[in-house]
């Protein structure tokens, strides 16, 4: 709760600081704020669960853990904002303020206990994102991305709201625990169709936010058009918060309706894995590949939802937590490197990475670790993320789905190797062969990201069963 208050206050303060128009003040300021928020969040660990706003928001282990991921992600991402923000000086403070506000939305999505809180959280997060997608005002692709994201997002929000309304109609309440009771023992069986349609519409609404197939079509275009810095934010924070919300909805409010939603989620999961991985395999630019791969990771996380089984502390919830953390860190690293390279070399296809192993060993190493983690190769956090999720799913008897996921991750290895091949095995040619400039803070952050990924891969026990 302290984190929400801090973020809101400093978001507004940040807007006032915008008069200074100096990145030398603003960037460290935002980083300090996020550090404070991270600390305040950690201070809530191991406290008795607390409720706020008339039991609409709970701060418990679940909330603290996922909030930790989103705040940490944002914090680790910020050093890469520098070169982008310098080029667009006038709106500096607004972007930072929007980032802080969007985190408020993310935390509300994670901690909600009441569907209104979920809706408000999603809106706060989404509206910030619509704006940030169009942050590069003079770039027509960025404008297109913002418009596309906004239109599709607005529809999805409408659908989600409709679903919430129907759910309310069927159960007479917005509170998760009361919905669970009402679904388990329906007072009026004739309302069941309304309930089911409501669940379906909510799944569609949230499925859009986390870019699960078949509601993923916006993802590649929006990711490609959005400035890389904000793409990284979108593909990590929004996804983590979305899945935390999704799991809570299915596991806390609707376990009694599992017979209805489980097949739907399973089908979505298989489709997402297929379209995400096959889509990523045929891409020619690194950024679009990462966009499609982000769809595929939604597929792996959906496996966790399938195995959720009505618990926020079991193997599946822990798996989703660990996977989100490993995925977020690796994605920030990948987008961070990609942004630095693309800014300098003015191209974001695979060939743009050629010879990076020679010119920038650090960047190449970090990118390699990130790719291996996303591919799920041991020594990295991604491996244990996949292992925990798949094990949880096999434990619930979803063997077919897991086999399919394993086959799909073989496809994944193919396309995650392509940047590595470009960086180490192909020589750089022509004017792109000189080193990419990286400042000290960025080097430090990249090193930290690689270190965190490897630490998660070597000592997963530290964070694997904490929920």
């Amino acid at each position, binding site marked *: 709760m302290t984190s929400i208050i801090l973020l809101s206050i400093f978001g507004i303060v940040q807007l006032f600081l915008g008069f200074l128009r100096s990145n030398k003040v603003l960037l460290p300021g935002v980083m300090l704020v996020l550090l404070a928020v991270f600390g305040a969040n950690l201070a809530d660990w191991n406290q008795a669960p607390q409720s706020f706003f008339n039991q609409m928001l709970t701060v418990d282990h679940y909330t603290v853990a996922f909030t930790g991921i989103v705040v940490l992600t944002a914090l680790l991402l910020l050093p890469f904002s520098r070169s982008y923000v310098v080029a667009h000086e006038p709106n500096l403070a607004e972007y930072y303020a929007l980032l802080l506000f969007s985190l408020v939305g993310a935390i509300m999505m994670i901690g909600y206990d009441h569907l209104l809180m979920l809706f408000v959280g999603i809106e706060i997060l989404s509206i910030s994102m619509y704006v940030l997608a169009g942050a590069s005002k003079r770039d027509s692709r960025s404008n297109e991305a913002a418009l596309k994201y906004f239109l599709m997002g607005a529809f999805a929000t409408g659908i989600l709201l409709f679903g919430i309304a129907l759910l309310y109609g069927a159960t007479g309440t917005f509170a998760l625990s009361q919905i669970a009771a009402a679904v388990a023992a329906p007072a009026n069986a004739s309302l069941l169709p309304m309930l089911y349609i409501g669940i379906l519409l909510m799944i569609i609404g949230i499925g859009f936010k986390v870019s699960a197939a078949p509601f993923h079509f916006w993802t590649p275009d929006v990711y490609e058009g959005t400035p890389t810095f904000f793409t990284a934010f979108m593909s990590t924070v929004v996804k983590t918060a979305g899945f935390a919300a999704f799991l809570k909805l299915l596991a806390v409010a609707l376990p009694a309706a599992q017979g209805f939603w489980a097949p739907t989620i399973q089908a979505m999961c298989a489709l997402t894995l297929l379209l995400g991985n096959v889509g990523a395999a045929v891409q020619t630019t690194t950024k679009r590949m990462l966009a499609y791969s982000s769809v595929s990771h939604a597929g792996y996380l959906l496996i966790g939802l399938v195995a959720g089984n009505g618990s926020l502390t079991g193997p599946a919830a822990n798996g989703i937590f660990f996977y989100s953390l490993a995925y977020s860190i690796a994605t920030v690293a990948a987008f961070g490197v990609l942004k630095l390279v693309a800014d300098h070399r003015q191209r974001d296809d695979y060939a743009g990475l050629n010879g990076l192993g020679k010119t920038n060993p650090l960047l190449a190493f970090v990118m390699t670790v990130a790719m291996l983690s996303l591919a799920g190769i041991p020594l990295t956090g991604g491996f244990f993320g996949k292992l925990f999720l798949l094990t949880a799913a*096999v434990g619930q008897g979803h063997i077919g789905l*897991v086999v399919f996921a394993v086959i799909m991750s073989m496809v994944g290895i193919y396309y995650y190797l392509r940047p590595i091949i470009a960086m180490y095995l192909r020589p750089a040619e022509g004017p792109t062969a000189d080193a990419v400039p990286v400042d000290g803070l960025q080097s430090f952050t990249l090193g930290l990201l690689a270190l965190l990924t490897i630490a998660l891969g070597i000592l997963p026990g530290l964070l694997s069963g*904490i929920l």
Partner: protein
Amino acid sequence: MLTAVLLFLPLAAALLLHFTKGATTRALALGATLVEFALAAFIAIDFTRHGSSAYNLDYAWVQSAGINFHIGLDGLSLLLVLLTTFLVPLILLAAFRGNYENPSAFYALVLFMQTGLLGVFMSLDAFLFYFFWEVALIPIYFLAGAWGGERRIAVTLKFFLYTVVGSLLMLAGFVYLYLQTGPAAGSLAAHSSELSAFYKLRLSAGEQSWLFWLIFAAFAVKMPIFPFHTWQPDTYTEAPAPATMLLAGIMLKMGIYGTLRWLLPIVPLGVSQWQKPVIILAVIGVIYGALIAIRQRDMKRLIAYSSLSHVGLMAAGVFSLTQIGLQGAVIQMLAHGVNVVGMFFVADAIERRTGTRLLPDLGGLTRRTPLLSVCFLVMLLSTVALPLTGGFVGEFLLLAGIYEYSAWVGAVAGLTIIFSAVYLLRLFQRTMLGPDSSFSATITDLTGGELAVFVPLIVLVFWLGLFPGTFLHISEPAVSSILSAVGR
């Protein structure tokens, strides 16, 4: 504690290499591997006196999921650890010859790989085993990909995809086994991924039937057994010499070792169900590899196919499920490791001097290179399995085991001795003897440093050939316990 030092010393050295330059780099890399070998030798001596219990190390790794960091040694592990620690310094010496670009990264990857390999041979926990299994793969991918020949990118990609697909199937099998252990409680901590817990599982024949292929997939690709071998000749040819030595000398043994330790005792019913098809595939590999080797013009390719043929024999020996066949596989793992590293070193030495490894371009080298040709001949005759060499002991025991399983299969597999004599003697004749080539006047003999690589190899060839008992005694209890777990 000593076990942990043994496992992580190469890794620590690899990290340190990053901060060194020039001669220091070489000294550090070689020094670390020599210390490592001394450590392994010390453990081996201590082991034969006091038994293995002192070398068990068991820590909770992922407590919430019942996964332990459990490493330990038995006779089988010990022999492979000895082989690895013995070969890696020699492989490094070979790498020193080669003048590879960015040497400290090259050596660091070799050392990194050593930790992965040792981890594979020492793990007693399924997920730890898988972890090291993949850890060993990453450095070899970069070694082959970054320093390899012209077609390296396509070839290493193929290699990586093949092995990873196999590994993932194995992982799926392990996850299934893992969930069968312990009470089926809601928390993962109720399960265990210990090797011993897997051994205790009582699985139905139907389950074992498909689990067999899930787990065997990884080993079959790594060995490689026919028809999972298509990555092998290309990768061996394109990879730089030290990487090829690592692949053929040690990494290939991961497949055999895995079969012995992780396949036979865990799914014994599956093994007896699929024993026949696998042996037939293995023997097809023996004949097929030998026949193709006869037609090769490239030295490295020839040795690659010969290695394919020899590993087929080892696989057949393992699946004969006889004491003698398994012991033969153990000895042959050591002998083949030594032989193949020696052979690739010869090929590398010739290529460095002449710039070619094509048989038609070579010939008549022996007049100016007596030392090289003697070393070459020893390695070659051991590979052909001449009595008194290590290769003979291994192949004899293997063929005896296969013969015990079926006389017909044994007879067909025995053809390998004739075939390997054909292609290897032809290899020697075309390169060292025969009409003079443009190089026969200018080629230089082995240097002292190169001789230092060959001497230990030759010593071991004869040690294995004359006193195989040294090694057979170490592995015997382990092999017996594996066989008793299979129910033979």
